[in-house]
């Protein structure tokens, strides 16, 4: 500041006036004016950008700061994207959507609607990812469609989240510089007339000084007020952006192994082994059809008819597949055998029926009821097991177990007839030995399972057909099995 002595015509006293030194360098003033105006444009533009970014929140739109770069090159980290809520019907492929991140609870994701998923779901994809997001989203997870993009205005939040404090400091410093520059031409608002206080009276009276001080104070207050107001608005806008949160446009990368394929063959563990005296060995391991394989060396076949169905089972202990009969079914064989004087009949059975029925029998005809049954293993209505035979064409003989076995549990039964006696073994143990039952006539005939005409045989039920489950039905046409063989068969399970 330079002091100029003025000689007023009213007084001889000198009056001091302070005049800004710039009065002598107007080019500098113009530079300051231009700089200040430019700085103010930058400052207010920044505020304007923040208004565009945060104000739509008042409309219910959703601004969010993009935190990662998987939507490059069109959306950068630091951009603020304002998503406009739209009706579900107006969301379509190609739009950039803001939605609840399905992979990270509580986060938002900004990706593009890439394709339709199953059941109305949306498959999304980040533009910079090579593959679509693996988790599809429901339409109700969409918060809005990207509508406004305010570039880089959210960068401070991204820098803070990534701990890039250097960036924050530099940006803060630049902002401060712009603020300072915007005030550098403030003095130009006050013209020379404001500063000059040359009055007729030489000495500045207290009133005028006080007035000057009041003017100065008022000016400072308005300036401070204006700055505070601006800061408050900017702060509120920034707070809105912080509260709206960041959208993670998630990066994803995957390593996929091609689908493995496993194929099962046939399970030989299901096969039962049958000894050399076996005429028929039926394990009932089929899953469907009307024939069942014979496991004996003769490898014959049994034919299902009527209500006879296969039930699935596994190789695990006592869980093998079996045959279910409903009282109208049977398994017949097609080989005519000569009846022998010793034989054995074996099967596993399970029933709760009170109608009894044939387990296995040797009849003159392959099937049907119009035939004679020469020897049969059957259950009485009370659930007792009987081996009934015809020693002659006009006589019958039967051996019955003392106990009943129609209790819903699996039981193993082997009935043997030799020249000495009839023995019935249940669950590996002989429960009845009958020395009076040891002869049988020897016609030729066919073995059948599950159904036979039992008329005339002692304690026979009226309905010769069995209701229940059968497994491992084995016929030894010419052998009375030993007790130890029976034990081993029982121990092997079904």
């Amino acid at each position: 500041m330079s002091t100029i002595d003025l000689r007023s015509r009213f007084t001889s006293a000198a009056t001091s006036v302070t005049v800004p030194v710039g009065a002598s360098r107007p080019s500098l003033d113009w530079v300051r004016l231009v700089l200040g105006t430019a700085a103010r444009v930058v400052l207010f533009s920044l505020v304007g950008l923040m208004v565009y970014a945060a104000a739509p929140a008042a409309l219910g739109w959703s601004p969010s700061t993009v935190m990662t770069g998987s939507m490059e090159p069109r959306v950068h980290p630091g951009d603020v994207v304002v998503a406009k809520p739209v009706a579900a019907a107006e969301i379509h492929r190609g739009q950039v959507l803001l939605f609840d991140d399905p992979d990270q609870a509580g986060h938002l994701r900004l990706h593009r609607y890439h394709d339709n998923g199953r059941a109305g779901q949306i498959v999304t994809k980040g533009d910079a990812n090579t593959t679509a997001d693996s988790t599809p989203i429901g339409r109700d997870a969409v918060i809005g469609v990207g509508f406004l993009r305010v570039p880089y205005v959210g960068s401070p939040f991204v820098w803070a989240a990534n701990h890039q404090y250097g960036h924050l400091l530099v940006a803060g410093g630049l902002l401060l510089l712009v603020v300072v520059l915007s005030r550098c031409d403030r003095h130009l608002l006050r013209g020379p007339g404001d500063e000059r206080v040359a009055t007729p009276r030489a000495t500045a009276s207290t009133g005028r000084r006080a007035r000057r001080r009041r003017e100065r104070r008022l000016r400072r207050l308005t300036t401070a007020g204006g700055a505070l107001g601006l800061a408050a608005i900017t702060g509120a806008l920034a707070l809105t952006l912080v509260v709206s949160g960041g959208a993670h446009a998630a990066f994803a990368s995957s390593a996929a192994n091609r689908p493995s394929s496993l194929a099962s063959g046939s399970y030989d563990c299901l096969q039962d082994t049958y000894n050399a005296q076996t005429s028929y060995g039926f394990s009932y391991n089929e899953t469907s059809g009307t024939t069942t394989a014979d496991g004996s060396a003769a490898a014959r076949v049994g034919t299902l008819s009527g209500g006879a169905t296969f039930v699935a089972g596994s190789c695990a202990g006592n869980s093998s597949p079996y045959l279910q009969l409903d009282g109208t079914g049977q398994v017949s064989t097609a080989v005519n055998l000569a009846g022998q004087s010793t034989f054995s009949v074996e099967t596993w059975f399970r029933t709760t029926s009170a109608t009894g029925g044939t387990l296995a029998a040797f009849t003159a005809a392959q099937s049907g009821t119009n035939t004679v049954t020469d020897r049969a293993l059957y259950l009485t209505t009370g659930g007792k097991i009987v081996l009934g035979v015809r020693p002659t064409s006009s006589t019958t003989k039967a051996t019955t177990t003392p106990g009943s076995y129609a209790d819903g549990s699996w039981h193993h039964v082997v009935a043997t007839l030799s020249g000495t006696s009839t023995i019935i073994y249940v669950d590996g143990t002989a429960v009845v030995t009958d020395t009076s039952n040891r002869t049988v006539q020897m016609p030729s005939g066919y073995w059948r399972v599950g159904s036979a005409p039992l008329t005339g045989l002692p304690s026979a039920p009226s309905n010769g057909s069995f209701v229940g489950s059968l497994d491992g039905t084995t016929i030894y046409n010419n052998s009375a099995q030993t007790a130890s063989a029976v034990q081993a068969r029982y121990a092997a399970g079904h």
Partner: protein
Amino acid sequence: MSRPTPRIARIAAWITIPAALVASGIVVSTASYSAFSSTTVNPTSNWTAGTVALTDDDSNTALFTATNLKPGSTGSNCIAVTSTGSLASAVKLYGTNAATTNNLASNLTLSVVQGTGGGFGSCTGFTPLSSGSSLYNGTLANFGSAYTNYSNGVGTWAPTGTASETRTYQVTYTVSSTAPNTTQGGTASLGLTWEAQNS
């Protein structure tokens, strides 16, 4: 040249507001148009701020191709998955292309164990993690229906991104001893996918 008058100064002071509004409006509308007007974008590889990247050592070969399986049949393979990304991420494992005939998949058990050592084709040297090594032990069918994408995938591996990290996964299948005879001649297929997302 005269100095700027106060009037010019005042104009200069206040013209900035509408000028700024116009300028910011132009910036926002241009940015919005360029970001949201196009509906498809070709993927670019110039990622700016770090990446997530996952690879495996399977040379595009499936972990298992087995036939003629019976109850008790079993097989095991390992696969080494490597993360080379520079961002911290979380890796999840899930199944794709799950399919089965004759219900075989419900009678196959699958076990996935994470650890180190070994690699695709040989589990020699594989050591399970000291804790939390078992990621899954159940039927193949259940894995294929329960773990289908990143959000419901299994896994606890969280590469930090500071350096390349490798983890090996040992995958074992077994045909259940209780597989019923109805599963004979059946098939089961499943693809395993490891995915990393930045956390």
